[in-house]
């Protein structure tokens, strides 16, 4: 892990009335593409807002880019970008004016801000519509604009709250491709909050799973996948009972899924024991999917733990 951490929190708590939105969150996060996962109301947005000082902390401490949150607001936010989940724009402005204005609010001179606004609008794929009033934009355009305003001042870290919300699949793919490039090609740390597991899996290297205000998992995606190695979905043309019986003899958990696949917990790092068993019972599979939805399983498992604890 690099010596410099982008986010450090110690026993971070945020309470709304009698409800704990964040409960004793302690994290040390290195630069990279970080996925913040959790169901609705888990505390993902509150966590980001606390770091950005949009919400005051109830207790605990936090550092963002090595600076104390709460003490150096302006200095921190000069180096941070944020795309809120909800539509937030300044009405009556054209897209390029808005992004230029956002650059000025971060301390860029007007001329530089205007030039960068156009560059960022090109980057997010906006054409002549940048000269139209924002009020007339479609959801997709607004999402692109939100991304442009978040990166116009060249931040070191950018917080993206559900950036692909409300987009069609093509639009989602384009936005996610852009977000992916921010870290991989340009070295900007990305904190992506989403409940879309496949989006996070596509972009992020580090995963934080939050539920009921508590951090349940913080690990790399590779480690999370490795944790779940040992299960596979087997697609067979019938003979399910035979496969289930063979699994039972080996005391492997086995489950027939609604889609007709058979999920087998073979408890090994490789698929060899499973292939050997299939060979023994002379069953030729149509397909074997190793570690299916590893992240999803971890996510669901973590949530179950959370619910059980509650």
């Amino acid at each position, binding site marked *: 892990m690099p010596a410099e951490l982008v986010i450090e929190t110690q026993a971070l708590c945020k309470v709304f009335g009698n409800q704990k939105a964040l409960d004793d969150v302690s994290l040390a996060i290195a630069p990279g593409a970080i996925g913040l996962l959790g169901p609705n109301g888990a505390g993902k947005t509150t966590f980001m*807002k606390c770091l*950005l*000082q*949009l*919400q005051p902390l109830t207790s605990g401490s936090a550092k963002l880019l090595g600076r104390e949150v709460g003490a150096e*607001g*302006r*200095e921190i*936010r*000069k180096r*941070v*970008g*944020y795309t*809120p989940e*909800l*539509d*937030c*724009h*300044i*009405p*009556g402005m054209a897209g390029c004016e808005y992004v230029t*204005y*956002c650059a*000025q*609010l*971060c*301390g*860029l*001179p*007007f001329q*530089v801000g205007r030039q*960068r606004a156009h*560059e*960022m609008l*090109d*980057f*997010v*794929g906006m054409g002549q519509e940048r000269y139209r009033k924002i009020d007339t934009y479609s959801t997709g355009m607004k999402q692109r604009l939100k991304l442009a*305003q978040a*990166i116009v*001042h*060249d931040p070191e870290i950018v917080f993206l709250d559900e950036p692909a919300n409300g987009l069609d699949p093509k639009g989602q793919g*384009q936005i996610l*491709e*852009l977000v992916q*490039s*921010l870290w991989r*090609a*340009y070295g900007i740390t990305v904190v992506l909050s989403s409940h879309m597991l496949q989006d996070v899996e596509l972009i992020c290297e580090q995963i934080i799973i939050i539920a009921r205000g508590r951090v349940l998992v913080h690990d790399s995606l590779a480690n999370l996948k490795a944790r779940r190695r040992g299960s596979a979905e087997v697609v067979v043309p019938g003979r399910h009972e035979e496969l289930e019986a063979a699994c039972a003899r080996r005391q492997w958990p086995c489950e027939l899924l609604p889609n007709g696949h058979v999920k087998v917990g073979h408890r090994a790092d490789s698929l060899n024991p499973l292939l050997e068993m299939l060979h023994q019972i002379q069953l030729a599979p149509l397909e074997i999917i190793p570690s299916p939805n590893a992240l999803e399983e971890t996510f669901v498992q973590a949530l179950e733990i959370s619910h059980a604890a509650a």
Partner: protein
Amino acid sequence: MPLHDVNYKHWRGAHLGVWSRRRAIAWNGLTACLQVRWMMNLVVLCWGLGLAAAAVLFMAGQLLVADSAVVQWVSNFNPMLQMFAKSLTGWLTDHPEISVGTTQNVLFYFIGSWLMRVSIFALGPIIPLLITRDLACNAIVIYSSKAVTRGDYLLGKFATAFGFLALTWLGPVCAAWFLGNLLAPDWTFFWHARLALENLLIYGLSSMAVLSVLALGVSALSANEKSTTAFWFMWWILGGVIVPIGQHTRPWLCHLSFGFNINQIALHTFRVAENIRKAEESIPILSTMAGGLKPATRAALESPNLAGTGLALLVMLCLAAWVVHQRVKPE
């Protein structure tokens, strides 16, 4: 073609200071204000009134020159008027502090007060542009996520309202003062009229500051544009209705009107009644002319005790600050 074939570029320049960000907020607000329908026309009207005031000052200045075109023109109507004009000119020339200083002081009280009403009217349509729209569109979240604090945001918005009033009030009256004295028969007019300018600035700047804070408070009341504009006009108009009632029943009621309180500041600053009395004492002919003033008018022009006004404005400002504090939050 991939979507992001235009590469991202890093920027490693120096950031500007916080005042440039506050200025950006103010400038952006002011630009938006001037884009409101008819607003440019209103601003032009205010400057036109300022020019008209300069013309009045020019005419008044010409009365001090015996052979001026104005005196000649007046004399053409009646030979008696010529005598009167010449004797008046003589008196006025002997007492420049009265003829220039006091005259301009009284004139600027009326010009300033009248133009302030136009400015208060013009503030109505721009009230929603201060905070209301930002509340409606969650723009507060965007501001809060940038390198500005809530204080910077409010300072920028205050500067927007203040700047707008400077455009509709301070600019025109100062231009009137400058042009009026520039076109006067003598450069010493600038010196003799300095008190009028000083009073203008004291009254104008304090009133503009008060009105700006009140406008911010009203603007933060609701996220509905029509509601905030309606509230501003209703407060102003109802205040105007309450004042004559309050004067005959309960005087404290008058202080519910911010327009009344601001006029009290003007009366206190310009000391109109005192100035008229001083002029009457120094130039007897003016005493005859001012003798036509009704006692009620004289009483209305008397310099008021500012305690009630101060308290009322303090309460209004505190209320406005409380509303802004409660409403202007990222969430």
